[in-house]
């Protein structure tokens, strides 16, 4: 029997959060963590979590599983269970709404700051703005982000300054538009990032790279932003 320990907190009933233990029979299968949660929820319907696509595309079920952030739907038990124990907690550093659901407002506020949309003030061409295959290739490794928040909530700099440090997810998206040959707001974007917090609170510990379920590298993108800021300022 797999020992599953789940973080429970219902602010309408509980004074404080507690861990609830369950025994779970995997029947020898290497299930995904989300499958375990679904089956436990069929026994105890009060267990609360977000989920949607169940295949690592929507980014809803970001959780902290045995101490490491990831998507429950694409994390097999074999990849996370140690010593027959599975500890499930909400993503660290964000306020808990209930059980495994966190309030992502601060995360989205940082995402909003980087203006994650194409800005181009030249007249729109008749059909579309063209881009060479080489310029398009610069966006690979950036556009795939699904905003699950696994990276930003594994980053100590984001834990301490979620209101001032943009965080790995936001900065990856920031660079996605800085690197886009069709975007003409590069200077305005960089001017907003020059302060000591927005970008430079990153100390390159690469927790973000370690947990990204899509295999992206925010630290590298942050390095590119830093280089752009340096060449702009020198």
């Amino acid at each position, binding site marked *: 029997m797999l020992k599953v320990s789940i973080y429970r907190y219902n602010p309408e009933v509980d004074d404080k959060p507690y861990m609830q233990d369950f025994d779970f029979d995997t029947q020898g299968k290497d299930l995904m963590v989300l499958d375990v949660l679904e089956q436990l929820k069929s026994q105890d319907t009060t267990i609360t979590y977000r989920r949607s696509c169940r295949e690592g595309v929507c980014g809803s079920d970001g959780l902290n599983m045995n101490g490491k952030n990831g998507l429950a739907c694409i994390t097999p038990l074999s990849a996370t269970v140690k010593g027959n124990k599975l500890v499930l907690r909400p993503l660290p550093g964000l306020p808990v709404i209930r059980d495994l659901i966190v309030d992502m407002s601060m995360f989205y506020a940082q995402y909003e700051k980087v203006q994650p949309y194409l800005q181009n003030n030249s007249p729109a061409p008749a059909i579309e703005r063209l881009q060479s295959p080489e310029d398009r290739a610069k966006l690979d490794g950036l556009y795939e982000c699904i905003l699950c928040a696994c990276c930003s909530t594994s980053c*100590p*700099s984001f834990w*301490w*300054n979620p*209101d*001032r440090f943009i965080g790995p997810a936001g900065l990856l998206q920031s660079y996605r538009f800085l690197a886009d040959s069709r975007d003409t707001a590069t200077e305005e974007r960089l*001017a*907003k*990032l*020059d*302060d*000591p*917090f*927005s*970008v*430079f*609170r990153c100390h390159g510990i690469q927790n973000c790279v370690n947990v990204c379920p899509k295999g992206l590298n925010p630290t590298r993108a942050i390095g590119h932003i*830093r280089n752009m*800021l*340096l060449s702009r*300022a020198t």
Partner: protein
Amino acid sequence: MVTAVTSFGRSGTSDWLVQRVSGVILLAYFLFIGSNLIGGVDYIAWKALFAHTWVKVFSLMALLSLAAHAWIGIWVVLTDYLTERLMGAKGNVLRVALQLLVMVTIFVYVVWGVQILWGY
């Protein structure tokens, strides 16, 4: 944009660059001092070494690098842990007080260091 009047250069890019350059200078200086200490050193040899103007200039450069490096580094640590968000208003009071203490200490060390380098 977030502004921070107590940071060293008022700009993240500037602080980052100063932190890196001062780090390299400090590494070079400690390797230099280490290479002189490794075979053992007596007072005569030590005094002769610091009689060279370039050693005094290099030492002052390292001292100023240490001052800038410490200012930036401590400021980053303090703005991580002692903030209004984590501790309420007393976080700001505590942080600014400690920051001032660090600045005063750095100032004393720099002036004292200059006196040691050129005073003996």
